[in-house]
């Protein structure tokens, strides 16, 4: 079956720190077929047109979270976005917003990784437990309380969507606060109080102004806006009652 081969103009942001003082856009004419993703378009550029183009990618199937970038001005996974959708218009591709640019489409992710570690993303047992006690038992209802928030692939599209993170990177940000909620909401976990030390602060849930664009762009339906904002009520109640009746963790 002959597939028609057409050409799409792709405008990619370039930045080589060793030779460029500023980022600039470079245009490539990329032959493509209807089944090609934006990622494949970039790979065509790198393989056939310009080997110097740098970008992150891995699984090609929207589960590793590596290929997040600004595609036509919106944060998207390049492997899950298709060139045919933009043709015949010129397609502009840039690095994820709100992160410093390392090189071309590669952004500096150290802040995200550091914060990820900072929320203790693991089950902190309520009390010490021996192997003989066996596995934790959990009902489907208990699982539902956190399951959605555990599907995050750390792609950071939500950070590109979040203006509060863009304006002040001291804010922990949507994805990591959603992960914090994932553990707080897990019936096996007893670490809410420790995590809510961050949660109750401006860097935590109170840095969010409910723009909710993060939830719009999330490729996995995590809904970080919901994870964060449903904790505001609990945090507020805990704030007012903490001297009278400490509830520990503002859940």
């Amino acid at each position, binding site marked *: 079956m002959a597939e028609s081969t057409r050409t799409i103009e792709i405008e990619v942001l370039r930045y080589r720190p060793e030779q460029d003082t500023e980022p600039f856009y470079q245009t490539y004419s990329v032959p493509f077929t209807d089944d090609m993703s934006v990622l494949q378009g970039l790979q065509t550029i790198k393989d056939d047109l310009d080997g110097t183009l740098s970008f992150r990618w891995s699984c090609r199937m929207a589960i590793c979270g590596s290929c997040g970038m600004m595609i036509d001005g919106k944060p998207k996974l390049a492997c899950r976005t298709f060139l045919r959708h933009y043709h015949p218009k010129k397609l502009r591709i840039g690095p994820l917003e709100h992160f410093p640019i390392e090189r071309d489409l590669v952004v500096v992710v150290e802040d995200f990784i550091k914060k990820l570690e900072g929320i203790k993303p693991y089950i902190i047992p309520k009390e010490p437990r021996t192997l003989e006690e066996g596995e934790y038992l959990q009902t489907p209802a208990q699982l539902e309380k956190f399951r959605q928030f555990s599907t995050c692939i750390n792609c950071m599209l939500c950070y590109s969507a979040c203006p509060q993170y863009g304006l002040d990177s001291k804010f922990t940000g949507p994805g990591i606060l959603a992960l914090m909620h994932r553990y707080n909401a897990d019936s096996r976990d007893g670490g809410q109080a420790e995590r809510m030390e961050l949660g109750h602060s401006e860097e935590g849930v109170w840095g969010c102004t409910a723009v909710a664009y993060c939830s719009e762009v999330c490729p996995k339906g995590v809904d970080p806006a919901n994870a964060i904002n449903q904790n505001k009520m609990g945090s507020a109640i805990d*704030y007012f009652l903490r001297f009278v009746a400490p509830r520990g963790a503002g859940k």
Partner: protein
Amino acid sequence: MKRSNDPIFWSLFGAGGMLSALIGAALVFVTGIGVPLGLLVSQDLMRYQRMLGFAQHWLGKIIVFAVIALFLWHAALRIFHMLHDFGVHAGTGAKLVCFGLPLLCTIAAAYWVLTTGV
């Protein structure tokens, strides 16, 4: 990590936001369009003697105070966040304007509500 004091202002923001969403439009219509034009409501619905009686009644006092104060405190946090979103530094000056003015208005409203017609 310093605990945020946002809960105070967020609770007021929420109460004011809910109140204005549930009855604000009706109030705006009646006071700003209905009464002035005699549209759907009588033009003398808000005549002096009737409003004075309303302000003297304990329920009237609560309603007038709640509407004025909560609407202002709803705007306080939102405008504070908006200033930050527009790039204005969220420092003491911004806090004084955004929260100091509603505080003054709240005190004034309390004073007039308690003293009108007494």
